[in-house]
């Protein structure tokens, strides 16, 4: 898919065309070291070629450690390109089920996991105050305004 026109609306993607594919980003990427299917350089290459696969799970492996951002000799900000790609993927409903699941929970109860009876018991035994059940009011509002709910 060709993201290039849409990407320009995202933060920090203005130097995309300066990428000369040197591999500094991937070479230092801690994720790539253990999950070779996540390759920042080839993600940028696919974006440049206008043929990125937004349903690729690997897009979501970035840990936002900023090593690629720091070292990129062309200040391409690879991290922000990956983030923009995941944002677009999410909007189109192409995010992996696990990611969508977390966000559904967030909208449901305002947390990324529901409060279990076990958690309630533990808090009680530690003398911690009870958690409010549903704190999702603001999230729901934001989700509506930003179109976030569409991606679910």
């Amino acid at each position, binding site marked *: 898919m060709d993201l290039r026109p849409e990407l320009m609306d995202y933060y920090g993607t203005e130097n995309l065309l300066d990428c*000369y594919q040197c*591999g500094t980003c991937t070479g*230092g*990427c801690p994720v*790539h070291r253990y999950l070779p299917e996540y390759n920042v350089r080839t993600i940028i290459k696919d974006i440049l070629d206008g043929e990125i696969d937004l349903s690729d799970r690997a897009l979501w492996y970035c840990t936002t450690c900023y*090593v690629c951002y720091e070292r990129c000799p062309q200040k391409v900000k690879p991290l922000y390109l990956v983030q923009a790609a995941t944002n677009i993927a999410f909007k189109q409903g192409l995010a992996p089920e696990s990611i969508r699941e977390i966000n559904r929970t967030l909208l449901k109860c305002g947390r990324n996991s529901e409060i279990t009876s076990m958690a309630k018991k533990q808090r009680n035994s530690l003398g911690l105050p009870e958690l409010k059940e549903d704190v999702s009011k603001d999230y729901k509002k934001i989700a509506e305004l930003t179109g976030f709910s569409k991606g679910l």
Partner: protein
Amino acid sequence: MDRVLILGGGITGIQAALNLTQLGIETFLVERGIELGGNLRMLGSTFPEGRWAPDLIENKVKEIRLSKKVTILMETELLSLVGECHQFKASLKTPEKTDEIESGVIILATGFTPFNPTSMRHYGFGKHKDVITALELAGMIKDGKLRRNSDGKEPASITFIQCIGSRDLNTHTYCSSFCCMYAVHLANLIKENYPHCMVTILYMDIRTPFYSELSYEEARRRGIKFFRSKPATIRAGKGNEHLTVQYEDTLDGELQFLNTELVVLSIGATPPEGTKALASSLKIECEESGFFKCEKPPVFTKVKGIFLAGAASGPKDITTCLAEGSAAAAQTAILLKG
């Protein structure tokens, strides 16, 4: 006023001075260092054809010294300049005193300063003794002593990293143009003199135009390995016996950990200190790169009577520097005699 003031006693300034004396024009050659020859003094065999740098300098300097038309001023800097073409008045600071001299034309042959890679911390320069610059390596090969700084042993493997301080928005955006050529030349020299040494060159793009392409071909035939990558980091291995270069081979997307005994950083060229100040006192302009701006190649500036030659207007190889030194001398003669 038929006198010429040349700033910079490197190979370019020497060439310009030599040609001007051959044309019978009185010349002042000004050098702020203590020796003539500039960056070339640190080199031995130079690309592409292996000319021996010390001979190149010696032969020309000998000829200049024999001429009565040239005055060489060492450890001298230009303080200020007034006037215009045919009647410049330069104030020069020599070790003993401040001199006022008149000159018709000024040639700027101020050259370049090799890039200092200490700012690139992920390459460990200054931290690991066996990460050295290509200039240091050239010096070792010149003296016939290829050694690791850490233990004095001859390295069994050497890895070059290209584009250090060049083509990088964090340092300098321009291509220094000669690094690929000297790296390939040095790699060939290593293979010639130390055939068992494994040589690897990590590059982004190999730029070896004209005859240097033959050196590149020769290098590949000799078994020097080329991988397309800009490495991420260099770390010291156990007991500092070797260094590990971590990089992605961008042609197959594989992450590599290359163990090597010596890492050579192929450093580029930077504008010498004081270039901007000199430009403003001469009322000429600088490029975004920090080098002097050449208004009309090869040698013209905005100001009539002030010429640029060699690396003063950006990184150049020796052959081009010699050509521009001669070009500046020719344009000077045309201006003075025309």
